[in-house]
């Protein structure tokens, strides 16, 4: 696009921009919208166990909302793609299982252990944060694979070997449901804090142009590390709570690449970088996924693949992102 056309576009918008005199009001409306979204989420999920024993649909919806939201911390706000995100999910599941089953600790402590394990591994991998672009994605993918192999090499007495662990003694889906609810609220709170805080500004600057951010005083490695720690804690908790909910842990499903893929796709479908992006994306695509699975059971992976391709080619900024681009005067109201 040439300078001239850009100028005219700006000019055309100027009356609108100029009428927007009060920046405080803008951020106020933005907060209101976000508050409304969070309230809706609470109202939608909180009372479910009172009405039905069929918790799974809503449970997994919360799971994907949390995964997509926390994925947004690194991808949307810090601009890098950990393609091995599933590693933390798997570590969380195994930490929970091992602490509960092998060491006999109560579930809440096991879950705290899962979060700690996730963060610990995240910190261990901190040196990879200096990698750029696709290198980071590949390394993190390799780490997920390595993690799976390491667990499979550990004594079967601890990890249950290739069969995995069955936590039948802990079966309490309603409690697990509320645990997931709390994790989701935690992720939303963390997201809110991240986007409103100065850390969030630094992260988005890094995402947009890492070198330029450095040149205006942003300590890239340290800033990323903070987001990274937050982004590793939530999938670990999610993996742990999911293990508690299904009571079955095994290597194949704990380290299934589709977990990463879905986190990415759900977050991107909504729009990376917006708080509401992952929420819109996860609820829309999760709903579609359910429909596909009901009506075209044998075609679901095929359709998932087609959706990913179509999304990346036609709507690379996601639903919210495309909306913001099309109606740029509303962009400032989107949390």
């Amino acid at each position: 696009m040439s300078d001239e056309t850009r100028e005219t576009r700006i000019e055309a918008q100027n009356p609108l921009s100029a009428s927007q005199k009060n920046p405080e009001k803008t951020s106020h409306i933005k907060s209101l919208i976000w508050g409304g979204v969070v309230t809706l989420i609470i109202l939608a999920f909180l009372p479910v166990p009172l009405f039905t024993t069929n918790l799974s649909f809503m449970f997994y919806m919360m799971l994907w909302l949390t995964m997509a939201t926390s994925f947004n911390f690194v991808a949307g706000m810090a601009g890098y793609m950990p393609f091995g995100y599933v590693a933390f999910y798997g570590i969380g599941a195994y930490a929970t299982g091992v602490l509960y089953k092998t060491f006999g600790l109560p579930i809440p402590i096991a879950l705290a252990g899962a979060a700690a394990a996730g963060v610990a591994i995240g910190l261990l991998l901190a040196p990879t944060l200096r990698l750029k672009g696709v290198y980071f994605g590949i390394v993190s993918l390799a780490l997920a694979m390595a993690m799976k192999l390491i667990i499979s090499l550990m004594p079967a007495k601890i990890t249950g070997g290739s069969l995995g662990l069955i936590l039948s003694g802990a079966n309490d889906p309603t409690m697990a449901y509320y645990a997931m609810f709390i994790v989701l609220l935690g992720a939303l709170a963390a997201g809110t804090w991240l986007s409103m805080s100065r850390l969030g500004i630094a992260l988005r600057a890094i995402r947009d142009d890492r070198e330029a951010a450095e040149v205006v005083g942003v300590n890239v490695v340290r800033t990323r590390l903070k987001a990274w720690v937050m982004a590793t804690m939530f999938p670990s908790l999610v993996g742990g709570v999911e293990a508690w909910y299904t009571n079955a842990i095994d290597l194949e499903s704990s380290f299934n690449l589709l977990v990463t893929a879905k986190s990415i796709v759900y977050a991107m479908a909504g729009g990376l970088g917006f708080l509401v992006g992952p929420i819109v994306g996860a609820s829309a695509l999760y709903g579609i996924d359910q429909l596909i699975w009901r009506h075209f059971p044998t075609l679901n992976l095929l359709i998932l693949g087609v959706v990913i391709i179509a999304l990346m080619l036609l709507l690379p900024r996601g639903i919210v992102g495309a909306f913001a681009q099309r109606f740029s005067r509303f962009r400032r109201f989107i949390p």
Partner: protein
Amino acid sequence: MLKVDQLVKTFGGMTALAGISLTVPDRSILGVLGMNGSGKTTMLNCINGIYEATAGEISLDGVSLIGKAPHAVFSEGVGRTFQVPRIFPQMSLLENLAVALLNKGLSNAQVAEISAHWLNKVELYRLRHNYAEELSGGQQKLLELARIMVANPKLVLLDEPFAGVNPSLALLLIGIIREMPQEVGCSVMLVSHDLTSVYELSDNILVMHEGHVLAEGNAEAIQKNPDVIEAYLGA
């Protein structure tokens, strides 16, 4: 005062800077001329820490900048712009400026006030909530300049500030740069191959050629220097 002493930078076997020495006194503008590939941008990258110098010394007001990461150099008071403006495209103009003020320990009100001042100065205030990617190339250069100026730097490195800027914006830009030493109190290193504006703005001029300093002096002396004439007009 910026002091660069015998700065050397090599890439593998290729020498990009072969011992550059210069000083930029406080509240002055140093123009740096030179053709493509003469090492101008490499020198800027060494000063602000994007590249690690192979040898030599760089100091600002007596504090060595060698071995410091770009964000640390920025904290020492060195701001820079790029040949192709590098703004944060998916952030609003206000947020673009806020990035540079993150570590200054300012209140939100102070940040807003400083940002408003500089956005007015570069005539972008009315677009403050727009995303930076919506700006024209020239406006992006102005935004980039405002983004370093909010942090109240001691030294500003400008890499080809006029490249691709339409004439009316260029005038605005020249006006702002001209005022900077006195009004803001910072010194400027102005790298360009646009002779006219460099001659007009600079207190002192340095001509680089193939990694060396070819000539140094005021505008008049440079225009008469036979080496410069030969390098520019060719043998």
